[in-house]
């Protein structure tokens, strides 16, 4: 066991734990955009910088292991100033779209900008993706991808890569031109993306959005929310039900280890609890590459064989 002090509070932590996890376990929140309890630390957003042992060089809480006797300050004026500057750098390269953004209310960038009093400002400088960023990738019926909102935290890439056979997303380009690309910088439709929604579940901002939720215009704060488990297979991945008035939609929630999330599961949950059965789509290899095509619920849930068999058996017993 390791004893350390965070913001004057003496706490116990396990060896190998990061400062961030130790703090979180004791209800001390440290802002972080790229941290996810189920993923390896990226340490890329740099928001979780904290002061360690009074030294002038701050350390990232997510990537620094706790040490016995460590004294951590998470909220000094200097640290807050650095965080404010980092948030400003992110906002300076982010569209001012919170009014209509699907992520509003649960967007981490919005949350921290509010907390630290950082606002959008007009400037003549460059914007991520240039012209291209005006276009949203609408090729997938399940996932909306908006490059201009991406803060390059890398969580979507990490979670996608947790499953070897997926690994669709990766960084492309470098420096200011860095972006997240699907396969060889293709649309989600043309790529090998299986629409599992793992990336959507971890995106801290509005860069990856569940399209079917957005089409129903339900934002999380105005909905009754409930977590349910998928029953399509023994993994039991978690989905969230969002209910507003007579509308009920679902979205993938937990891609944690051993729970891969998949499109079939998603459609299964949709069929089970959503207020309306909307057209399912599946990806097909065509001569022109991969295409999303409309399908039937029976086909989407791979029920055809079972239904045939049931029908056959029942007609037999009717005889």
């Amino acid at each position, binding site marked *: 066991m390791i004893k350390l002090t965070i913001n004057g509070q003496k706490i116990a932590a396990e060896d190998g734990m990061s400062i961030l996890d130790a703090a979180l376990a004791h209800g001390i929140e440290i802002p972080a955009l790229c941290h996810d309890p189920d993923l390896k*630390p*990226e*340490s*890329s*957003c*740099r*928001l979780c*910088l904290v002061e360690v042992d009074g030294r002038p*060089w*701050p350390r*990232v809480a*997510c*990537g*620094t*292991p706790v040490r016995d006797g460590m004294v951590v300050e998470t909220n000094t004026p200097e640290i807050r100033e*650095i965080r404010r*500057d*980092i948030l400003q*750098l*992110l906002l*300076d*390269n982010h569209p001012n779209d919170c009014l209509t953004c699907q992520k509003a209310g649960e967007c981490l960038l919005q949350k921290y900008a509010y907390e630290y009093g950082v606002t959008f400002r007009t400037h*003549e*400088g*460059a914007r991520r993706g240039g012209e291209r960023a005006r276009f949203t990738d609408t090729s997938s019926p399940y996932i909306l991808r908006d490059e201009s909102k991406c*803060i*390059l935290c*890398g969580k979507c890439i990490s979670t996608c890569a947790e499953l070897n056979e997926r690994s669709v997303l*990766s*960084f492309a*380009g*470098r*420096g*200011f*031109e*860095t972006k997240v690309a699907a396969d060889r910088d293709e649309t989600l439709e043309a790529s090998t993306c299986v629409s599992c929604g793992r990336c959507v579940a971890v995106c801290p901002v509005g860069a990856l959005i569940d399209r079917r939720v957005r089409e129903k215009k339900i934002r999380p704060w105005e909905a009754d929310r409930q977590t349910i488990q998928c029953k399509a297979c023994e993994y039991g991945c978690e989905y969230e039900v969002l209910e507003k008035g007579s509308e009920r939609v679902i979205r993938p929630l937990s891609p944690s280890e051993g729970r891969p999330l998949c499109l079939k599961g998603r459609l299964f949950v949709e069929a089970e609890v959503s207020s309306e059965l909307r057209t399912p789509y599946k990806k097909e290899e065509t001569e022109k590459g991969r295409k999303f095509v409309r399908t039937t619920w029976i086909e989407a849930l791979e029920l055809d064989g079972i239904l045939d068999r049931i029908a056959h058996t029942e007609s037999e017993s009717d005889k």
Partner: protein
Amino acid sequence: MSMTFEKLKEIREETLNRMNLRGFPSDKPNAPYRWSVAICMETSCMSSKSPQIKQRLLDLIVRDGKENEIEVVGTGCFGLCEAGPIVIVRPGDTFYYRLDVEDIDRIYESHLLGGEPVRDLIYPESITDDGYLSYFEIPFMAHQERVALRSSGHIDPEDIREYIALGGYEALYKALVEMTPDDVIDVITESGLRGRGGGGFITGRKWRATQASPGDEKFIICNADEGEPGAFMDRSILEGDPHSVIEAMTIAGYAIGSDQGYVYVRAEYPIAVERLEKAIGQANDLGLLGANIFGTGFSFNLEIRLGAGAFVCGETTALAASIEGRRGMPRSRPPYSADKGLWGKPTMINNVETFANVPYIILNGAEAFKKVGTENSPGTKVLALSGKIKNVGLVEIPMGTTLRQLVEEIGGGIPNGKAFKAVQTGGPSGGCIGPELLDTPIDFDRLAEIGSMMGPGGMIVLDEDVCAVDVARFYMDFIVDESCGKCTPCREGTKRMLEILIDITEGRGDETSIPRLERLARTTELASLCGLGQTAANPILSTLKSFRDEYEAHIKEKRCPAGVCKALTNNLTKDD
């Protein structure tokens, strides 16, 4: 084949005997040569036709059947690249400079056949009243001391036997047979050798940490991803003396318990890569690499990995990612490479020049190494001197040599009667050192004290015609290109700093420009993930320190005092 000490000595003596004209006395000189002609075969001289000169000379020799009288050696760098292509005729070390291919005919006829040097082709500063100075006596070489470059210019880098002739691979024998791994690390630690890649970390401590790190598989990496503008030290060492690095890596492997090494070298160095490949092949053939070296049971395998042109891959964790075949992006440390480096195994990474010092230290001992240099920065440093300086080239100086000695004496001062403005050290991570700090000794700590850094050794001299803001813009442009894009402050902050600098140089600066720059510089320095971002603002901060008035002239008077910034040339007032 398997190598023994006797065989090594045999090769040494055999080869040395035919090298006696090159200034290495041997007991039984057996070479009938009257002349030995060294022609520099380093990238810079090769680009000014040294291979054609060598070919022409060989043709002349064959035509006249003089093969037994004249030896022709393609060597590594002599240093004074600005005077290339360089040809040195021995005995006498007569220094011919900036030759055209046809000039070699005259040297052949007059000097080699007739014994009369060709005065008008000889480097002017080596001409005295009573003859010609040896290359090694010219003012450029005066303060130099060659340790890392000890064999460069003397041997044919493509012939392992010539490296062996100068004591090559004896350090390896000594380490493997006469020393324990601990002994080796102790000597390296005692020598005080510090990382020549620029960080200045104590090399022995790095070796010790990797040795102590538990693991049955460990790796040695040589970082040859030299990438900053104006740097060519590592390239020159690999081209001029590749075996010194191979031998050192093998010694390091023995010391830390690794049997596999990688040289990570940039693909933009084709000649270095080719020589290194050849050298590794020769070392394998002679049993100086591979299984059971010197019959000790120690084995070491060495492979080359090519970089794909990313500056950030000089950062150790990004370098490891690149070797593993992943995108070259740094990761947060800890864990450190000594614990979890390449493929998660303990890994020791040193720079080319650091390695090149190792055989010397093993053979001559820590004390010999410490005789040169300063207390905290013992030894020498190889520097690539370029920019507005008379003697552009590769130099190796004892640590503690002052910048003034470097610029005025070794460098020969600023050409065309211009005034010195600054020397840029440490590449994009370093800073500009103005005239007021010219007496600073070149060593790790003293350069850091004045807000610059040693860096890998690129030294770019700037004269009065250079605009300080434009220099900062140049380096920031480089950084923006080379930032990997992973962490927010470096990715976003460097771009914004560049935008402000462009605004200033194009007349759009205002009173907020400098404060904004300073604030962004601070954030990027404190918050970036790796060294690239943490030091990215140094060119701005250092030019602001020495040349703040120039920034202000751009901003307030819309005037570029050096007359460089085109958008402001209408407001040019200099010299009018």
